[in-house]
């Protein structure tokens, strides 16, 4: 096929001498699928308009623009009461633990504080009367020991002035 006419139009196109109709002819020619190899380099030049025409705003263009411009709508969700109260429950649990630890610590350091393992005691007596007798005797011994110690202390104190008198004489 002879493409002399197209080549002539191209020469005129480079010289900016083509009319609008002639440029339309060139665009129509290069729109075809079968373009000779020696004219292929020029196809992209005349096909760009078609490609640019294909570019357009998509169907989601409005949605994208509006999403950037408008405030997002918040859909209301139903939150169960238990979930709503969960932070409060957690805070209450933490406070309870801290107060309990504080109470335990205070109880430990408060007086009086019996800390003997009374559970390990095995009663020797099975009746209170026998136990009372034993406790009374023990108390009597302790009482007598206190009195004896006081007597010994008084005796040692009273002995000191006598020695001083002797020295003076």
């Amino acid at each position, binding site marked *: 096929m002879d493409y002399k006419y197209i080549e002539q139009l191209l020469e005129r196109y480079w010289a900016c001498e083509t009319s609008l109709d002639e440029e339309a002819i060139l665009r129509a020619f290069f729109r075809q699928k079968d373009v000779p190899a020696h004219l292929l380099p020029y196809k992209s030049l005349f096909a760009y308009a078609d490609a640019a025409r294909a570019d357009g705003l998509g169907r989601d263009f409005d949605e994208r623009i509006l999403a950037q411009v408008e405030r997002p709508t918040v859909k209301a969700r139903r939150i169960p009461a238990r979930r709503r109260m969960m932070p409060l429950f957690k805070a209450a649990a933490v406070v309870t633990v801290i107060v309990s630890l504080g109470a335990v610590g205070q109880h430990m350091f408060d007086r009086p504080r019996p800390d003997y393992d009374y559970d390990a005691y095995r009663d020797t007596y099975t009746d209170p009367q026998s136990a009372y007798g034993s406790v009374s005797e*023990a108390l009597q011994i302790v009482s007598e020991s206190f009195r004896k110690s006081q007597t010994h202390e008084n005796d040692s104190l009273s002995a000191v002035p006598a020695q001083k008198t002797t020295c003076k004489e």
Partner: protein
Amino acid sequence: MKLRIFITCLAAILVTAVRAQDFASRYMTENEGDSTLTCISVSPKMMEEILESNVGRNDTTGVADIIARLKSMQVVFSNEEGDAHFERAESMAVRHSARFREVASYDEDGKDRARIYVREQSGEHIVELVLLRQQEGRFTVIDFTGDMDSGFIDRLTHTMLPVAGGAESASAETPDDALRED
């Protein structure tokens, strides 16, 4: 991480809350293999029963008031090697001098000697009173725990305590004999 910290704190508190032994129990523990030692125990429960019994309710000598301040009593005694036991007990009290303070003592040429210790908390509050006594070959530890103070010791010192009838009629092999003086 927070759970670990919480468990550690709780464990620390629990460890410190472990109950301690009184002097008599500790002495028995340290001399566990000594068959010459005998221990008499009166638990807090029995102390309450004493106060609720007839002897406690009908007391007119003031002993019941004194017993009301007591939680427990333990008596450890031995009729052999009194001096060795006494010195061992005395050294144990000295080892725990941060806990036990000597408040009275006497010594009659080694034949009759005694030491009285108290364990105090928060100043004047006495939680334990311990008597170590040696008479010839006989050794006795009398250990009271309870809610005591210096006023209690004054009352105890100046109260004439009767010898209970039940103990006098006991046989020679009962523990009460150990408390009876010769």
